[in-house]
């Protein structure tokens, strides 16, 4: 199963995710690292993307801006 790891920096628009995923239709599992100052804020940033996803497995991790890059 093809996996992808994507990091969404604080300055990147979450809508960029949809564009990235559409370029890789064979990816079935996504690890999404989202930069935000607060853990739950990370999910709030990508909520629309999560709501529109039905076919892929997604793990969302919160990252502080600039952490572990």
């Amino acid at each position, binding site marked *: 199963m093809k996996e992808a790891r994507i990091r969404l920096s604080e300055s990147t628009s979450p809508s960029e995710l949809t564009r990235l995923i559409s370029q890789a239709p064979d990816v079935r*599992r996504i690890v999404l690292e989202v930069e935000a100052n607060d*853990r*739950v804020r990370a999910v709030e940033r990508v909520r629309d993307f*999560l709501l529109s*996803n*039905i076919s892929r497995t*997604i793990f969302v991790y919160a990252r502080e801006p600039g952490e572990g890059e």
Partner: protein
Amino acid sequence: MRLDVIITSDRTMMSNHHHKEFLGFFTTGPPIGMPEKLWMWLCAPKLKVDRWGRPIEAPYGLRKIEAALLDAGINAAIIDPDHLSRHLRHAKVLMIGHHDFFAMCSPSVEWWAITGVEPVNSRSFKRLMRRPEIREAKRRGLRIIVGGPAAWQWLWRTDYWREFGVDTIVDGEAEKVVVDLVEKALNGDELPLYVYVGPDDVPSVDEIPVIRGASINGLIEIMRGCPRGCKFCSVTLRPLRYYPLEKIEEELKVNARAGLKSCILHSEDVLVYGARGLEPNVEALLKLHKLAKKYFGTLAWSHVTLAEVKYSQEKYRLIDKLTEVIYDEHQDWIGVEVGIETGSVRLAKKIMPAKAAPYPSEKWPEVVEDAFAIMHDHRIVPAATLILGLPEEREEDLVATLELLDRLKEYRSLIVPMFFVPLGVLRDRRWFLREQINELHVEILRKCLWHSVRWGEDMVSRMYFRGLRYEPVKLLLRLFLAYVKRKARKVERQLEERGLESAKRGRAVSVVEASNQ
């Protein structure tokens, strides 16, 4: 007993509802016409527990998670919410499942919108999460993992995600991911915030564990997934898998050993168990029902589809054959949930193109009526749902639904209208809000109410509660139905006198709107 992992839920989930599954639906309602404590006694009485606070029966979904963890050698157990304190002193992980954490599913969402009062499921869950012992354990490093069919609600209620200090939300069939998550939590490793389990990561039938303890009211799965692909439903996103009879029997035995006297066969459509496509497998169904009756005096179905009722009876006399197996000295009727959703052919074609199959969608109203007639003749009592506010709904669709309701008047059934909740393929669509209710919606709500009150009274007196021990429950339900009739007549008078708009202004805003603030 020192547990590493506690699995639990609030009282509205952790109850056998007096062994009457239908009473469980009252947990989706607000406590109207009686004090909340009495309402909770009516719909969610406490369960029997062992000396460690482990309930004799527990929700089936939690039993699956418990089994997956125990099979992996993890020290876990389901604990009744009244017995959490002593286990929280040592546990490292708290896992919580629910069908409707924040009353955002139907029908909770419309009871809240119509009455302006928060349903007890949401109140009870919040009370659980605000308990001092959970907050204290959280301060000591307890990790909280939450899941179940309503996990999606947390995406809308991130305020509670923060307040309750939830570490991870798991959305979807969790058996294949839960062991890894819990091991990470026990080892103090980083946890994901949110996990969505896609169709490629759902467990195969062999990977689904057998429950270790009894399930509420003996409910057991016979299959997962649904082949009909209705767009408003999340179950159809997952692949179809049938449990073999041997696996079903193992779970029947677990429940029988715990002393349960009845079982519920769970499927989105019991009548397609073992089917090739939508062609019923008569032999498999007869074997399944004979097997269940070997262990239990009474059985119920969770759901069937109306098209399958009509087709299987007309082609195979299947309903005759199954009721011959089911009915005996212990049982002479059966209850089941069914979905009407709409009376409109136009809308049926758009949102549930395979719901009428093998009949064409053009025949949907006829399929519904014929199936209701078959069920009425066989003493099968459906609790049917309608969806109001479906995307692209027009007035002509609502008129068609009203016409269908007129045709269903004489069939013993409950019909519950539900507001559209964005799930399944439609999960990114707009919610249906009370501000969008028009006169036709009100007329549908009104028709459904009087239909259900009429047949509800009939069932309370003649079928559902037999035996002296149910007299207090019957009395309370009769009083409640009388209260509902009185209130409904009052609202009808207001509507006639003041019109819809002023009646709507007299109520609170919808829960969904409140949740978006």
